[in-house]
């Protein structure tokens, strides 16, 4: 130990360094503490890690009475397949860890195509099995704690999450339960920012982990929201890796 006096002329410099260190430590501590509490609330890291694959089944509601059936499947480490189906036809979006692809069958074309820039950015995000908060540093994401903020009358902790690809997300964690109730996203696509927000709710348990069963999203600030409500979340269903690979054209017809 040494006293400030002993530091002599270097005192203020050292103090600044120490203060700076304390500030960054406390910042990191807060971030890790909040994320730790979030993980603990939803079931804990062990239970989270025990999940190797998830199948979400539910309904998409786009406003004005428009509905579709939705299916999302995630498999570790970073595979995802999403289906929106209507009149027995399914739009498929998938990523196998390397290739992102889409089938948009509604106008009669049922071949798989590779995803464009926007789609690719999004599908890679969707493939993040535990979401960007869990193991954020390993994934190259940066997280900062920005303080408390009111959201629609609820107190929240606001986290700024900068994903490895530059996308910025603001997470609003409920101060009682540490689960996110809102996420704002700012993606930069071809030099232009696109902002959206997602409202999470109806957290329920599946396989020992709490998942949001209601996910409403839309442009930031707009009252027009598309809502996905899950009926069922299956834990560790069997899934073949090939299920996520891009099919070789042409796809089989009905």
């Amino acid at each position: 130990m040494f006293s400030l006096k002993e530091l002599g002329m270097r005192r203020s410099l050292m103090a600044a360094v120490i203060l700076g260190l304390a500030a960054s430590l406390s910042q990191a501590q807060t971030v890790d503490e909040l994320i730790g509490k979030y993980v603990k609330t939803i079931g804990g890291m062990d239970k989270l890690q025990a999940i190797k694959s998830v199948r979400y089944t539910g309904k998409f509601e786009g406003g004005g009475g428009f509905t579709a059936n939705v299916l999302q499947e995630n498999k570790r480490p970073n595979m995802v397949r999403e289906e929106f189906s209507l009149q027995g036809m399914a739009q498929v979006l998938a990523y196998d860890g390397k290739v992102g692809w889409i089938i948009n069958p509604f106008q009669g074309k049922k071949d798989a195509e590779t995803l464009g820039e926007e789609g690719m950015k999004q599908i890679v995000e969707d493939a993040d099995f535990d979401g960007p908060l869990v193991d954020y540093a390993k994934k190259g994401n940066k997280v900062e704690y920005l303080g408390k903020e009111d959201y629609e009358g609820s107190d929240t902790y606001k986290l700024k999450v900068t994903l490895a690809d530059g996308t910025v997300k603001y997470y609003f964690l409920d101060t009682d339960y540490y689960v996110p109730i809102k996420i704002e996203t700012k993606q930069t696509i071809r030099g232009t920012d696109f902002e959206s927000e997602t409202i999470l709710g109806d957290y329920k348990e599946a396989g020992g982990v709490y998942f949001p069963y209601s996910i409403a999203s839309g442009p930031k600030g707009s009252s027009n929201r598309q809502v996905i409500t899950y009926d069922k979340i299956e834990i560790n269903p069997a899934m073949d890796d090939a299920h996520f690979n891009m099919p070789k054209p042409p796809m089989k017809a009905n």
Partner: protein
Amino acid sequence: MNIKGNWFLLGCLLAGLAVSGLGQVKVDSQTISGLGIRNIGSAAMSGRIAALDARRDGDRLTIYVGAASGGVWKSINGGNTYKPVFDKQDVQSIGAVTIDPKNPKTVWVGTGESWTRNSVSVGDGIYKTTDGGDNWTNMGLKDSERIAKILVDPKNPDTVYACATGKLWSDSTERGVYKTTNGGRSWVKVLAGSNQSTGCGMMAMDQNDPRVLYAAMWDFRRQGWTFRSGGADENAPSGSGLFRSNDGGATWKEIDENSGKGLPPKPWGRTAVAVAPSNPKVIYITVEAAMPRNGLYRSDDEGKTWTALDRSQMMIWRPFYFSNLIVDPHDENKLFKAGGSLIYSSDGGRSFSNVAGSAHGDFHDVWIDPTNSNNVITGDDGGLWFSYDGAAKWWKADNLPVSQFYHVTVDMNRPYNVYGGLQDNSSWVGPSSFPGGITNHQWENLYGGDGFWTWADPTDPDYVYAESQGGYIGRINRKTHEARGIQPLPGYKEGKLRFNWNTPIHVTKAGTVYIGSQFLFRTRDHGQTWDRISPDLTTNDPSKQKQEESGGIIVDNSSAEEHTTIFSICESPLDPNTVWVGTDDGNVQVTRDGGKSWTNVVANIPGLPKNAWVTSVDAGHFSAGTAYATFDLHTFGDLRPYAYKTTDFGKTWTAVISPASNVRGYAHVIKEDLVNKDLLFAGTEFGLWVSLDGGNVWSQYKGGEFPDGVAVRDLAIHPRDKDLVIATHGRGIWIIDDISPLRALTPDTLQKDIAFLQADPVVQKIQAGGGWNDGDSMFVGENAPDDAVITYYQKKRHIFGDLKIDILDAKGSVVGSVPASKRKGLNRVHWAMRLPAPTVPPAASIAGGATTGPRVMPGTYTVRMTKDKQVYTTPLKVTLDPRVKFNLADRQANFDLSMKLYNLLGQMSADVERINSVRLALDDRAAKTSDTNFRSRLKAASAQVDELRRKIVATKEGGAITGEERLREFLATLYGDVISYEGRPSLIQMQRADSIAKELADVRKAFDAWTATELPKLNSDLTQYKMQPITVSEVVPASNGGGVNASGIEFPISMGRW
């Protein structure tokens, strides 16, 4: 602690509170803000732009626009689209915007416009963002009220100078030039005015040597009845003058007629100053001095000597409003001068051309693209304008809804129209909804000048009353736009009547029109005859009637300072003989005998300072003796709100909003609800406020995208549709649809964890499309929802477990479900009133006509909300749109045919499912068998079956426009046609339904015949080959999604991740 544990504890806690009767629920912004709000604009007229800055980075142009009272708007695409970035701040009035030249994400905003017209708003200091406008921090100078310019040292951007103009209506010390050297953490006043009414009016910097600064100090004051630019009188000489510093503001030297050879003698008023960026020795100033020495001056030696140049009218006009010079970045001889018209010199200031062209007029700021001087952006009283040819022609920004309404009224059309007048932007009418959205095209300009009160004539829908400044009321034919001036005129030797700039007009349901000068006038015959029904109701104080002397150094008497006038009028809706009048000089007058006698009751109002501007009077709807009034003292420097209520015709008054309350901003308007007498709405300079308890507790409405600090000048409650229509001065018209939940939000309800709020019957609005592809640069106002809106209250946000809303018909069957909203306080969800989309057999492509369910029949439904295991219900009545030309029996006939087709699509799906079950099984067996002959037989059988399928559905794939239509496509088209018009279907539609059903039955019969004859043979052979026999699937497919607009299907690119 696990979640269930927390839940349990919370439940106990809430239960305990309920039992003990503790835990009074506080009503606050979040309680009420869940009611949605929509902005209908318009951007057709847009509004005053006070300041702007832009920056070109590579090929992209970023623009920050400072609206006079509508916040800061950012465009990242050169002006195609704009985003308001300042809406969460406490004020919306902008005086200065400056992008940090080194760090383009850092932007400084000085709040409080310095173009100090009578209606100007106020600011609360200087703000900074370091992330391009996402987050702002108030960096101080909170008492400066207005800031005219911010200059950032281009070499050291932590050094910033603020030109603080200061308070308009009162003395203050926080004005002058301020400097920070630490990015705004602290400020030092480096140049003070010589008195407490002198601040900084404009400032300029030598960009090559940023230590060289010029500050134009300005002595000014506005009062309700006069304005001066320059000193008060001989005993209080003008503090205006030009100052120069060459040491970053440490020391200043005045440049006046003694030190700057050629300058006019003092006193001065407002001065603009600009340094030529390409040659900083060249300084331009405009000087408001005694005529004829006023005008433009140029120095080529940094201010030592000056040459008097142009003094054309636009150079010398209204210096308080237009003192701004903008020099071309590359040519010291080219410059713009803001003015009533924009003027431009290319000869160093000797002569100017009018380059305003077809832009609106009353220009305040100009930006010249440093990479190409042909690209010019300017802001005026009508919005933002772009030129790509050096200001020859202008392109208007059609996407900036910063319109500055003074008043708003509504009519009884369906949908109703909204009427209002705006600062320098005439009087307009626009629909509250329009198929496809309320674009700028739907708004119609009615009159001219500045607009204020605008009313539909309730006795003749073809006519509208509107006015321009100073009470020039006209009656306008909406179809022909013929306008007849009907202003009451003075009598013999009366000189002129005193009409306020913003003259009150009040029109009653019966069509009686009131207008006030110092006298109250009334007409019952559309202005053919006016009855003068009062004596002078004002103080008639001659000291406040010297408008011909107003302006200061240069006279400025535009009627904006007309005073000792009537400002507010309201006839009692319960008694036409009771009329309330408020004046701008502090009188509240009431007559109970139709104007024969008047009583000034203002002395009965406790605690109200004298001569307060009576901004609104609202006669009660439940008792003739009741009235509310708002009082505004900001013209005396008191920005706090005052509102009072009387229940005894003005004998006694109680404060409903006091300066000590949480309500912010001087008060413009108060309205008592039409149904619930305890529900009050108030508009102040800083927002919309709601009280559920007669004025004891006020909550600021902060819902949707409504800006927190916007000035709410007027309010209207639609008597039929129950909408609250909000006139903002800076952000256009906003509507909160159906405020009945606020009427029903009792203290009892507030105590409940969750509760429905009784809804009025829902009208099934006519289905209609409209609008067109206008691109992104056109403002489109949001329509009222076509859906049934269901409102409920939650004491706390819902996070865990289910929250489900189902709709049940009279038999108790679920006919729909909607996702629930989760927020604390009032929540709103929408039900489209549609059944699920019909089940449609799979085919080559989507059947666009059949992606929507039919709308349910009018009738009574039940809304059932399930929160975890708790169930709550409320009735929901659905009615026909009164505009439809058919009756309920027609509607039923339509619904019956719709359901017949709906079920036929279901039957068709089952038929295709049956066929496919056999066809695919045949293919499966064919693939499995090794016997080539048998395989051929199976394949042939599959082809036979497929031939039947191909009679039902189109099968050509590949994405081309195949034009292939089979029964499925015919049926879906017919179904789509039938459900999109809800009157009686045509005979041919009914016949077509029968023929398609018959053709489908024919195919079914053929398939049944095939399965009866061919399938048993095949199955017997399959058994021989030890393969599974084939059975016909009788599974009826479930509804497989759909909804309106599914023909243009656009799914999200993904489901998202959390």
